[in-house]
């Protein structure tokens, strides 16, 4: 990855135009040819630097639901509980964090009702209390990381 790649990533994290020749438009902005931009983007996707190039949807407006939840897992049950929680297709992310509440995961479902069903199922299968922390307000949506 060189400076041009970094410039491409930083620019495309901010957005991508909806018009008939969007790559040409972005390429001009970056001082590249359309072909060079397309080739570099394809390489970044092929080598795994970028996971995806496309739309970011608003889950709730799509009718779906999301929540953040956490459990206190006894250290000797970490592997077992991780396996149970990760097996749920509704669990999108799961991270160990340095706190008594040591496992934090995001649940994403098609409907709000499925959130509580999933939380209950996780409690039943793990025997642990799940702390549910749905968002009340969101102040920022653009996840941007400078490359």
């Amino acid at each position, binding site marked *: 990855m060189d400076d041009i790649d970094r410039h491409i*990533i930083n620019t*495309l994290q*901010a*957005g*991508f*135009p*909806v*018009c*008939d020749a*969007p*790559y040409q438009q972005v390429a001009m902005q970056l001082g590249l040819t*359309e072909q060079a931009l*397309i080739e570099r983007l*394809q390489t970044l*996707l092929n080598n*795994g*630097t970028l*996971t*995806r*190039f*496309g*739309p*970011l*949807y*608003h*889950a709730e*407006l*799509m*009718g779906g639901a*999301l929540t*953040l939840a956490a459990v206190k897992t006894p250290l000797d049950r970490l592997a077992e509980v*991780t396996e149970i*929680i*990760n097996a749920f297709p*509704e669990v*999108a*992310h*799961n*991270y*160990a964090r*340095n*706190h008594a509440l040591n496992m*934090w995961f995001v649940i*994403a*479902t*098609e409907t709000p009702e499925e959130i509580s069903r999933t939380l209950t199922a996780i409690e039943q299968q793990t025997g642990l209390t799940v*702390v549910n*922390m749905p*968002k*009340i*307000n969101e*102040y*920022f*949506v*653009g*996840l*941007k*990381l*400078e*490359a």
Partner: protein
Amino acid sequence: MLDARDRQLLEQIQTGLPVCPRPYAEIGTTLAMPEAEVLERLTQLKQQGLIKRMGVIVKHHQLGYRANAMIVWNVPDNLVKQLGRQLSQFAFVTLCYQRPRQAEWPYNLFCMIHGKDRETVLKQLEQLNANCDLVGLEHNILFSRRCFKQRGAVYQPTNTTSLTHG
């Protein structure tokens, strides 16, 4: 609201846009939809906020962002909105939410910082505390120790919808 054609379009592009000179025309060919209609529908879906944005989704680890911190504060209820907006102005704050307090969990304001190392993140936290008048408020910083699971965003009109950090 979404009609059947919108849903087909959203499903078609969810895994990614074609990387070729006329990507929207190519999507249209697959769906038997004129390019102009693809552009019109996508523009509208963006305006309605169903598509938050188009662009790249990076693997933060690949870019050297190895310190992923969730920082939480217990702030007075009447200040949450103002502070949330203030925090989200900082370029290194990647997500910012108000969430309910819980038993044994007094925090109601959450933000994420994806940093290259812990030292940088701690300095950024100091900057937030100083600039947003958060010094002295109860807070906690939870670094991620291990990522057990991270799957990409999925949208299947007939099945499940998922995204970002909730």
